[in-house]
């Protein structure tokens, strides 16, 4: 049994991480008894699980994920939703509206049109077919106003923070609504347009510096400075 890397060491594809009775966690692969990194990222070893925190990567849907999607296309009884993933998602009418509709009488575009932004949850995903969503549920549905941006999905956990600590801090300090999708899409809305701009700047900063320790303090400092700048000047 041997571990060849320090925790949080920057590792590259093909780099040997550990050997022996370990479990191969995310972003690694096993070759016999040896576990290697498969991506560029930070090595992590916890409870006999060897994994790598990827610094870049696409969004792979998981059942239960909250995602922000953009309506891409539609059929009489369903919508196709772009969820920033290699897989286009399907949202069926029965998973969006309280009552079924008669496709002959009503056009579903009345509810969600192409280009609309929605927040929902992944309810089905296995690799044999495209993911399925629901927008039935508290806080789900169409988003209006505000701004939509995209960050690398690998940075979402840092943006949210442990038990929501980071994102709640930002929402409170800037008085804005923020919805973070696991798929890297973030919706921000504030009555104060300048604070909305600050929120976006902050989110971009977190994306850039997600892996650097001391981020929470730097963010707190930045919010204070930016608020001072727009309120004072």
């Amino acid at each position, binding site marked *: 049994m041997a571990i060849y890397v320090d925790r949080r060491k*920057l590792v*590259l*594809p*093909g*780099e*040997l991480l550990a050997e022996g009775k370990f479990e191969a966690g995310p*972003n690694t*692969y096993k*070759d016999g008894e040896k576990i*290697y990194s*498969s*991506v*560029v990222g930070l090595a992590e070893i916890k409870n006999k699980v060897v994994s790598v925190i*990827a*610094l*870049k*990567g*696409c969004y*792979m849907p998981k059942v239960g994920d909250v995602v922000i999607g953009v309506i891409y296309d539609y059929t009489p009884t369903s919508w196709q939703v772009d969820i920033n993933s*290699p*897989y*286009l998602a399907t949202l069926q009418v029965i998973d969006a509206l309280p009552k079924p509709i008669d496709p002959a009488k009503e056009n579903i575009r009345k509810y969600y049109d192409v280009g609309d932004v929605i927040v929902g949850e992944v309810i089905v995903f296995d*690799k*044999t077919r495209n993911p399925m969503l629901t927008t039935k549920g508290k806080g789900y549905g169409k988003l209006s106003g505000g701004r939509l941006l995209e960050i690398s999905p*690998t940075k979402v956990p840092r943006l949210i923070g442990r038990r929501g600590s980071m994102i709640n801090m930002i929402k409170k300090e800037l008085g804005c609504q923020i919805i973070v999708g696991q798929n890297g899409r973030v919706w921000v809305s504030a009555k104060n347009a300048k604070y909305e701009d600050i929120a976006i700047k902050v989110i971009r900063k977190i994306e*850039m*510096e997600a*892996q*650097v320790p001391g981020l929470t303090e*730097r963010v707190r400092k930045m919010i204070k400075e930016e608020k001072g700048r727009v309120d004072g000047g």
Partner: protein
Amino acid sequence: MSGGKPVLIDERGLRVDGRKPDELRPIKIEVGVLANANGSAYIEQGKNKLLVAVYGPRELHPKHLALPDRALLRCRYHMAPFSVEERKSPAPSRREIELSKVIREALEPAILLDRFPRTAIDVFVEVLEADGGTRCAAVTAASVALADAGIPMRDLVVACAAGKVDGQLVVDLCDAEDKYGEVDMPVAYMPSKGVVTLLQMDGILTREEFEKAFKMAILACEKIYEFQKEALRRKFGAVQEEVSGDK
């Protein structure tokens, strides 16, 4: 423009550009140079200048081409009209089509394609200036671009050619050596796994010469591997340094 074959190895045993037989051309690799692509890399190797972009994994159109259990890797090797001495038509030539296939097959064994069924991973290579050995430079840069895109791989793939010019075995052939030499043998290799993913050869080599040249190519690949890793570490380690600098 003087015609005829130049002297490829001089009295001191040095090559047409002054290199020793086992010496590589200067290499520079930059990661993440394009804003749109999911991953990208720029490589200069001697006078070669190549840009590689990776898109994916992404939806595959038309759907019937999708593979049920893994991603489809597609590769396009293409030369700019101004990349060579005589203007080349932008339409794909037979050589570009063959190289596209060979490069794809060099990269495919390294990528964990089964993690993304029914998707496509696209690798686009554009040669901006060509001076021999562009397919090797393409494989080397493409691996870095794939890593930049976060696409899971078993290892980086690195490539270099060995060959024979004026009777002497050499590595990393430039255009003149390619054109006027006796043998050109490109090799692509996964150093951490010790396996070869691309091998082509044309010309005559004895069994001994073959083994010697092949080993020279592998050694050259291992040297270039260090450049790939260093380029990736430079890019991904940069933010850490930038932020600590503030304190």
